[in-house]
């Protein structure tokens, strides 16, 4: 895994000290809130409903054991014993005190972490496939490129005051687990006809109040040219992106208003000026970063483990966990183990200090000290020997982390919503809890199969409701929470924005409404169809009918 060099270390430490001084000046009254606000936001410090919130970056969702242990320690020392993993592969703390945040940032810096790129109109923390370096279907580990993007984009002087925030996601696999088509820039690794590995560049995707699936601006860009090409896109956006209206300032609006062809021409024109400049990254330099992400020292193993099979046969709950939460690894004898942060009736993405420390310990014992955070708000131990899976699951299960529901109806994405967020218009967590309880029976979840429910507590769509197979958007209607349902969204390589089914439902009605959709799907599905497949086959009408009848 990537380790900070002296430059990284100095950068983060200086930033931490700068912020300590800024906080001191703010508390002493030397700077006003108006002056301080942009400074605190650039360090991940928001003011939410009940308190400050600190958002910590987890670049490309990769953590070392000592880093996760420190995240647990910070939860205990500076917060109320828990943290919330977000849809941006970050972690948020909900109760830090302003004068203690510089200490928390120092603790983070000591394990090579920070809160940079978690707020403001800059290029944000780059996200990627949580199974990077482990997935059987991967072309190449995308993280060396993510790390290069991190280095290129961090404090980039030209792109610190963009028209609006800017999010880049990368997938190294054709099966997109990073939702790259709904980011400002999505990079999909693939090979061109000459057999070279590079990236399709997708631009102008996004969720929020104006959702779009991104459009391909370039089918193939070679690795050496990637960074100058990204710079060219950012330059075009920085120059032409709208600054007159916050709600029309994202690059998706520019692409939509000007058209992808015009944006492509502008980018190509800009790129022609800079493509042979200092941003052209040599093969040697790329190799240097690839070397930072070399696979761990896997043992040569048979892919079949007799004990593993015995445990599966003897223990139904373990069998079920393997069935949903364990994914094929590229290395024979190893597996990818998903740690669900969605216990039935629990708060999606929340983990206690001791749970974080436990997962850190288990990662050292079973997964080369490597942990991942997913945009679906779960954790992953990416490199576990099949022979160790039972011991791992036993330890996870004892700590409430053994829920067998990955990809099922109870594996719900939910933003913090009105329970925490100052922008929210309705609560989302309690709704996710009630849906989880309604469908908690595992046999029923197996019967339903893959079903992605995603809930946002406001139009900003942090809960990705637009790309949920069933999406739920919480709104405020004359002081009461009500919930709008969208159907047919998809965050994968077949990305689609869901369509609004019709009028919203009250808090009391909405869980029944979701259940009626699921029941309808079970009634009309054909063999092997997931909910989304059935929806694509039959369209909105049959589902609309169960929701609204003659209404």
């Amino acid at each position, binding site marked *: 895994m990537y380790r900070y060099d002296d430059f990284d270390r100095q950068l983060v430490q200086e930033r931490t000290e700068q912020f300590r001084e800024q906080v001191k000046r*703010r*508390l*002493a*009254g030397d700077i*006003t*809130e108006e002056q301080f606000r942009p400074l605190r936001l650039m360090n991940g410090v928001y*003011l*939410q*409903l*009940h*308190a*400050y919130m600190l958002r910590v970056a987890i670049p490309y969702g990769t953590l070392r054991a000592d880093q996760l242990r420190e995240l647990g320690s910070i939860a205990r020392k500076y917060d*109320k014993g828990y943290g919330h993993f977000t849809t941006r592969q970050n972690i948020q703390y909900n*109760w*830090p*005190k*302003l*004068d203690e945040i510089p200490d928390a940032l120092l603790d983070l810096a000591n394990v090579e972490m920070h809160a940079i790129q978690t707020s403001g109109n800059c290029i944000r923390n780059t996200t990627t496939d949580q199974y990077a370096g482990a997935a059987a279907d991967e072309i190449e580990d995308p993280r060396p490129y993510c790390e290069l993007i991190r280095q290129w984009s961090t404090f980039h002087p030209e792109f610190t005051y963009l028209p609006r925030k800017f999010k880049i996601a990368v997938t190294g696999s054709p099966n997109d687990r990073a939702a790259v088509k709904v980011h400002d820039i999505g990079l999909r690794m693939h090979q061109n006809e000459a057999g070279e590995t590079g990236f399709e560049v997708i631009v102008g995707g996004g969720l929020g109040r104006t959702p779009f699936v991104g459009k391909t601006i370039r089918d193939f860009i070679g690795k050496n040219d990637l960074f100058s090409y990204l710079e060219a896109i950012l330059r075009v956006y920085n120059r032409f992106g709208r600054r007159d209206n916050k709600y029309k300032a994202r690059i998706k609006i520019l692409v939509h208003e000007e058209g992808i062809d015009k944006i492509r021409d502008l980018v190509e024109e800009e790129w022609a000026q800079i493509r042979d400049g200092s941003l052209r990254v040599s093969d040697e330099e790329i190799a240097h970063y690839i070397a930072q992400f070399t696979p761990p020292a896997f043992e040569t193993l048979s892919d079949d483990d007799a004990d593993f099979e015995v445990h599966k046969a003897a223990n139904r709950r373990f069998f079920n966990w393997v069935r949903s939460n364990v994914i094929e690894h590229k290395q024979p004898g190893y597996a990818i183990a998903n740690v669900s942060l969605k216990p039935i009736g629990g*708060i999606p993405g929340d983990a206690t200090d001791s749970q974080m420390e436990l997962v850190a310990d288990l990662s050292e014992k079973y997964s080369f000290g490597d942990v991942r955070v997913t945009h679906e708000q779960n954790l992953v131990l990416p490199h576990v020997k099949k022979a160790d899976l039972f011991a791992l699951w036993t330890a996870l299960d004892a700590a409430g982390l053994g829920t067998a529901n990955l990809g099922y109806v109870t594996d719900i994405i939910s933003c913090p919503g*009105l*329970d*925490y967020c100052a922008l*929210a218009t309705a*609560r989302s*967590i*309690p709704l996710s*809890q009630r849906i989880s309880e309604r469908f908690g029976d595992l046999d029923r979840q197996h019967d339903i199969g893959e079903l992605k429910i995603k809930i946002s507590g406001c139009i900003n769509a942090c809960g990705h409701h637009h790309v949920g197979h069933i999406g739920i958007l919480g709104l405020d209607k004359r*002081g*009461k*929470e009500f919930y709008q349902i969208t159907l047919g969204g998809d965050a994968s390589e077949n990305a689609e924005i869901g369509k609004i089914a019709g009028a919203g439902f009250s808090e009391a009605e909405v869980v029944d409404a979701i259940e009626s959709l699921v029941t309808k799907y079970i009634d009309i599905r054909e063999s092997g169809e997931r909910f989304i497949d059935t929806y694509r086959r039959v369209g909105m009408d049959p589902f609309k009918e169960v929701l609204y009848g003659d209404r």
Partner: protein
Amino acid sequence: MSLQVVTANRLGDGLVVFLTADGGWSENINDSRVADGKDAAEAILAQASAPELDVVIVGPYLIDVEQQDGGLVPTKYREVLRTKGPSVREDLGYQAV
């Protein structure tokens, strides 16, 4: 005419506070100075927005409240949550005390 109080977040810890009758800030909405009518509301908001309070609180604003069972209750659910804490964690926030 509706009743209003001023709320804000305290600078040091970000916690929710309310402007009190003596010009201080309390964690308890029932300590609030209540304004009845537009002029009174403008007056308390102006008081809460004094520049010297910038080192005490952040972002003061008016909220509508009602008298209920001898206590003040915000009319908007968002503000009710601010007086209590997250509905999903009743062990946290003011409701836990």
